[in-house]
């Protein structure tokens, strides 16, 4: 059975009982990203679906306070009404995970999921101003605040973001919001090769045109063979209309040096970036989906090294620094992770795979021993009995 607390008090009581009984918990928001991260084996389930609702939304203060189970569609609708947004552009991974909706705001934050605007506006972790939670010790605590600028005490928001429910269970969170850009336009340039497309993005991001997205697609669907296959670079410009018009002309001149430039206007631009954001450009049926984060300048070398060994589909975001790829086979893990390590480091995370494979390899990139030890001690400082989502971020060392 699943425990569904409706308020903070019920959550705290339940958790403190779980601590007394040493009951390990499978913690989920609305359960849409169950298959993200490693597999959890726990005694019982805790769902935050009913700990839901917008607590306070102050558009002129640029903050929204919500309970963790609040669905993203509710948050997005409330913000849209005031012409605002979550600037980190959280993905809707419903189709990737076969879920019915984009999930809860707590889940997005716990997974630190950010979309294309990550490159210019920052990640989920940059927008979590504060939270209240119950730790794996069964005690409630608050960190951060509801104001933009705060350095009082350790920034535990950063630890909570991306901790996949392994440190504490949030009962309320405060996010910074920003005005929605008036217009969105995308310039695309056809390139002879991936390396060329990356250079085009680099030129765009080095210019004063303030791109808010930079993606690379590969013309051919299915297995990728590089050679002289054409690629395309896509640069998004957002902002007030006059400004975007002005920047389009500057950027067109820059990109023209790389190949033929075409323009996606408003709706087409938004649709394109939504596909990038939601990882909709990969093979729906692929066995595995991986997410690689590397320095943008090495991306074509990383891809070349991988495609020399196996066949994949992929696209890039974050000016080239993010690779989303799909492929198959037991060896893919080794191939992608060593490609990342051979090119200055970064990480390769497994986003989707059959359960047997998820049981065999960690979704998370292996860490050096000293850092893994520190992660373990940090986790222990919140959850000494390993009650919260045990195994979700890999096995504990201790």
């Amino acid at each position: 059975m699943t425990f569904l607390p409706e308020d903070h008090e019920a959550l705290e009581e339940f958790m403190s009982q779980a601590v007394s009984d040493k009951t390990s918990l499978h913690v989920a928001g609305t359960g849409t990203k169950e298959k993200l991260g490693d597999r959890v084996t726990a005694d019982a389930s805790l769902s935050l679906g009913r700990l839901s609702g917008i607590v306070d939304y102050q558009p002129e203060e640029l903050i929204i306070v919500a309970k963790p189970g609040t669905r993203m569609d509710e948050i997005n609708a409330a913000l849209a009404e005031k012409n605002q947004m979550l600037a980190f552009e959280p993905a809707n991974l419903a189709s990737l995970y076969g879920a019915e909706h984009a999930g809860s705001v707590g889940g997005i934050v716990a997974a630190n999921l950010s979309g294309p605007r990550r490159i210019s506006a920052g990640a989920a972790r940059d927008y979590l101003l504060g939270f209240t939670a119950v730790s794996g010790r069964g005690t409630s605590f608050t960190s951060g605040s509801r104001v933009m600028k705060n350095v009082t005490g350790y920034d535990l928001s950063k630890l909570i973001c991306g901790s996949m429910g392994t440190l504490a269970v949030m009962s309320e969170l405060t996010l910074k919001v920003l005005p929605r850009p008036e217009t969105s336009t995308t310039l695309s340039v056809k390139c002879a090769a991936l390396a060329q497309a990356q250079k085009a993005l680099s030129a765009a991001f080095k210019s004063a045109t303030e791109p808010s997205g930079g993606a690379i697609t590969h013309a051919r669907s299915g297995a990728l063979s590089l050679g002289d296959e054409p690629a395309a670079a896509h640069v998004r410009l957002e902002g007030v209309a006059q400004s975007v018009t002005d920047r389009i002309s500057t950027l067109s001149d820059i990109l023209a040096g790389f190949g033929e430039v075409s323009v996606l206007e408003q709706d087409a631009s938004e649709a394109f970036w939504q596909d990038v954001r939601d990882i909709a450009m990969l093979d729906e049926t692929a066995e595995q989906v991986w997410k690689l984060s590397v320095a943008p300048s090495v991306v074509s070398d990383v891809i070349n090294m991988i495609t020399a060994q196996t066949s994949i589909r992929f696209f890039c975001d974050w000016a080239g620094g993010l690779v989303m790829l799909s492929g198959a086979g037991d060896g893919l893990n080794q191939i992608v992770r060593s490609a990342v390590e051979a090119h200055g480091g970064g990480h390769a995370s497994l986003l989707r795979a059959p359960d047997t494979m998820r049981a065999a390899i960690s979704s998370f990139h292996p860490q050096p021993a000293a850092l893994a030890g520190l992660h373990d001690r940090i986790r222990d400082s919140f959850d000494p009995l390993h009650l919260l989502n045990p195994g979700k971020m890999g096995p504990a060392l201790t």
Partner: protein
Amino acid sequence: MLMPAPDKTTLSRRGEICTALKAMLPAGCVIDDDATMRAYDADGLSSYRQMPLVVVLPETTEQVAEVLRWCRDNDVKVVPRGAGTSLSGGALPLADGVLLALGKFNQITDVDFENRCVVTQPGVTNLGITHAVQDEGFYYAPDPSSQIACSIGGNIAENSGGVHCLKYGLTTNNVLGIEMVTMDGDILRLGGKHLDAGNLDVLGVMTGSEGLLGVVTEVTVRILRKPATQRAILVGFDSAQEAGQAVSNVIAAGIIPAGMEMMDNPAINAAEDFVQAGYPREAAALLIVELDGPEVEVDYLLERVGEVMERSGSSSLRVSQSEAERNQFWAGRKSAFPAVGRISPDYLCMDGTIPRKALPEMLTRMSAMSQKFGLRVANVFHAGDGNLHPLILFDANVEGELHRAEEFGAEILRNCVALGGVLTGEHGVGVEKRDLMGEMFTEEDMKQQQRVKCAFDPGHLLNPGKVFPLLHRCAELGRLHVHHGKLPHPDLPRF
């Protein structure tokens, strides 16, 4: 402010400790004579002074690791120090602690325009990074007023901000990676030229940890292309309350300026006397709003901000017509601290943040407090993000005035918290606000923070006495309080 009582054994072992440190570091890297050590006895919070046990200036990461490991093994405390400009006493030495200064880590190691980042040693100044990339039209965005002096390592430790944080974020939003050394002497690399941790965000919690969790030995920051155009507007108001409301109105109009600063009448006049920036002396409050981006965008936003200001009751408005004039507008604001230093023998600079909408209320309370304590106050604010810098004027030579100024400051910060804000927006807690932490956090909130500290430094050897009012032993913090009560909501669904 009470610091933990120095450990007598450590004090008595000073000779032996210096000898050991000299053996592991190159010649000239250990300073143990009083005359030279004197230069390190305080940071920017100069009302607090303390000679360190000894000063070390290592030259390599391995040396930092060796010093820390030795100090851990020998139970000796360590205080990291960058450029010593902290305004909260974060780098205040301990009588029984080694002061580990990063002054020799002063090289930029990699300027990478392709990935738009810079890799640097932590002792390089904030402005030094911009200098290394400005010829190519780039800059490092966070711009503390102390940027010619403060180190990037110190910026990370304090999560420093500046006038342009409103649009470009604090240090934490601009750091991509660090190399750090733990008190155990482990060398860790967090992040790099790629984005996100892909695991627990240790870099995120290191940023703003005030030198309590580890020593930063290398930094990777992102650099931004300089905006095509920057222009500033000076707007005068007859009442500070109206000016505060105008700030909220700009944000409510969907505009995020590059910076939005506010000065009250005493600050305006002190600055005007000092640099003749052309500020309206009669105004009760002045806003400086900076807009940047492509010229057409800046022109358009200037007009819209102008409309908002007029609607909010502005009494004067000037738009900078040249780069020289823009710099002149900023000159007054940027020299506000020294300008106030001229009209008062001493001043305390506070640093609370409040919700923007509480600005008018806070200003009203501030005048009342000024009366109550009988001390003048000049206000400069990073108004756009609600970060206040009230400067409390006093004379340390007058018996009791320092104490009164500190009481006044504490009351301001209590009011910040009461209005929904925080104790510090960018200067850090350090020793200065340590005993006020309980205003904002419960005992359990602080305990959880200290448990994180224990994950890094279980012996509390790194920068103890800072940030937390009570030093709980890690063993005590780790204890679980399990209660075997009945479940209070038997009607709720459970497993």
